[in-house]
């Protein structure tokens, strides 16, 4: 019987050039695919900058401070929309943070049976899955009509404040803020819950061990330890709120007339884009691109800040 050299049995012991080519090619392909992220980002930046430069040359910073938006006279100032973006998202955040963090505490601490907590968690997550346009539809036909008497009462009693100085007439900033609350609640809740769950159990045991009450432990030990994750989540939610388009567009009224009143119709950058981009041409497109650039910078700053805060605070507590 012939003795067989293993190299005869294993035809590929010496790798053929083809196999090496596939191996190398696959690596190159993955590098190429990974670099598409960078290309897309660059593309977005160049497209928006390129589209906006005409309006930037014409208006400069006046675009941000002026509140006239006149497609007929070709005069554009986006202050109303920028103001609307900031006010709606910040106020929505003020309402959503306590609600979201409270919910997160409620579903991570063992205050109630596990199955109820799991059901609540699942529901909040499913809420995040509902498309924004469906929430907008619901806001138009259900929430806003229900809300109007309440807002009218607010106007009656607190009308002397500039924020409630107009009579609610349907769409406006206030319903837009509330629908934004619904949209960002799931993010805040989900991230707060994850952060709370990552607090090491030893910390909690230590707190109980020195005789704190349950809420003493939550408020003084657990929440501070989870604060980096929660803050990051809040910032992400702020970014999301500023860029959120559909539900807001459908309920905010899309008015470019500036008003301090939250009961009056207003505008945000994204709803202005959604409303006008399809029908705009010429110089108006450039002005809209400029507005898009402002929105991009705002969200970019918020998102980068979010990552920075998370990194700094998690260093402090790790």
């Amino acid at each position, binding site marked *: *019987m*012939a*003795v*067989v*050299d*293993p190299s*005869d*049995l*294993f*035809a*590929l*012991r*010496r*790798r053929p050039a083809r196999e*090496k080519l596939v*191996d190398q090619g696959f690596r190159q392909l993955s590098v190429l695919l990974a670099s598409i992220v960078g290309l897309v980002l660059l593309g977005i930046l160049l497209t928006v900058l390129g589209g906006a430069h005409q309006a930037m040359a014409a208006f400069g910073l006046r675009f941000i401070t002026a509140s006239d938006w006149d497609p007929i006279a070709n005069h554009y100032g986006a202050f109303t929309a920028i103001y609307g973006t900031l006010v709606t998202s910040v106020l929505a955040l003020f309402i959503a943070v306590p609600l979201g963090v409270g919910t997160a505490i409620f579903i991570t601490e063992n205050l109630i049976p596990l199955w109820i907590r799991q059901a609540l968690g699942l529901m909040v997550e499913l809420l995040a899955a509902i498309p924004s346009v469906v929430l907008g539809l619901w806001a138009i036909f259900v929430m806003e009509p229900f809300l109007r008497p309440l807002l009218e009462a607010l106007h009656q009693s607190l009308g002397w404040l500039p924020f409630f100085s107009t009579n609610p007439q349907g769409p406006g900033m206030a319903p837009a803020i509330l629908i934004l609350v619904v949209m960002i609640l799931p993010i805040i809740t989900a991230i707060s819950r994850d952060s709370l769950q990552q607090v090491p159990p030893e910390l909690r045991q230590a707190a109980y061990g020195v005789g704190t009450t349950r809420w003493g432990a939550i408020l003084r030990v657990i929440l501070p330890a989870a604060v980096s994750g929660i803050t990051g989540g809040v910032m992400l939610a702020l970014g999301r709120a500023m860029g959120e388009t559909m539900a807001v567009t459908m309920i905010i009224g899309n008015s470019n007339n500036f008003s301090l009143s939250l009961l009056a119709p207003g505008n945000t950058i994204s709803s202005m884009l959604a409303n006008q981009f399809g029908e705009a041409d010429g110089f108006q497109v450039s002005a809209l691109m400029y507005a898009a650039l402002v929105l991009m910078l705002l969200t970019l700053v918020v998102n980068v800040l979010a990552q920075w805060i998370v990194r700094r605070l998690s260093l402090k507590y790790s």
Partner: protein
Amino acid sequence: MTTTSMPTPSHLDQAGSEFCLELENVGISYGGNEAVRGVYMQIPRGKVTAFIGPSGCGKSTVLRALNRMNDLIEGCTIKGRVIFDGQDLYAPQVDPVEVRRRIGMVFQKPNPFPKSIYENIAFGARINGYRGDMDELVERSLRKAAIWDETKDKLKESGYALSGGQQQRLCIARAIAIEPEVILMDEPCSALDPISTLKIEEMMHELKKSYTIVIVTHNMQQAVRVSDMTGFFNVTPKADGDGKVGCLEEFAATETIFNAPTQQATQDYVSGRFG
């Protein structure tokens, strides 16, 4: 050639150096942190060579340098030469994948693929372009790894269905199925119970008839039981007093290392442990 009978690996009979692997002034660093330095070693063909030493002495690092597994660790760099088959394994034209096809490895933790027992063996053979009878190869490899009787009725079951010791023998079978010339074992028994350990040690006595084996072990009795040659690695403070670095203290026949070592450190280590 009419039959693919049990190939007596002809490389054992090959004329040439009696040494299978030669290390010349090998030094390894992780991202600028020197782990091992100045290793000279000639690993004989067809024998079992054991690496022993305290933890952190770099014995596993050196082992992984022998088939370029360290390539997978980012920031790992190697100095010196590792000669195999007359060639420096770290020469630029060498393909690390081909190196690993000829120098197989068994790891500390059993790591079967999430595939059937049969496929665990056949996978490696197939990517090595095996042209013979696959069923026969699977049976032969499992037999050599002394696990055929336990698995012959459930070759289609997942490799994860086996116990830890069986999984490790499956991994050994997987390594020998591709007929490497050398098998590197990185503490193959550290995660196993004594009975599984015994089975693997018995198997190694069989395997060394066909292969060169290099084994890292933290268990000195095991080194005595299975190896012909032993290398004792030690940690020494760096000359500049900045941290510690591993080095090869002594390399000799196992008997010599355990009964009449020339170095005091070796003497201390082997006797201290036996106490």
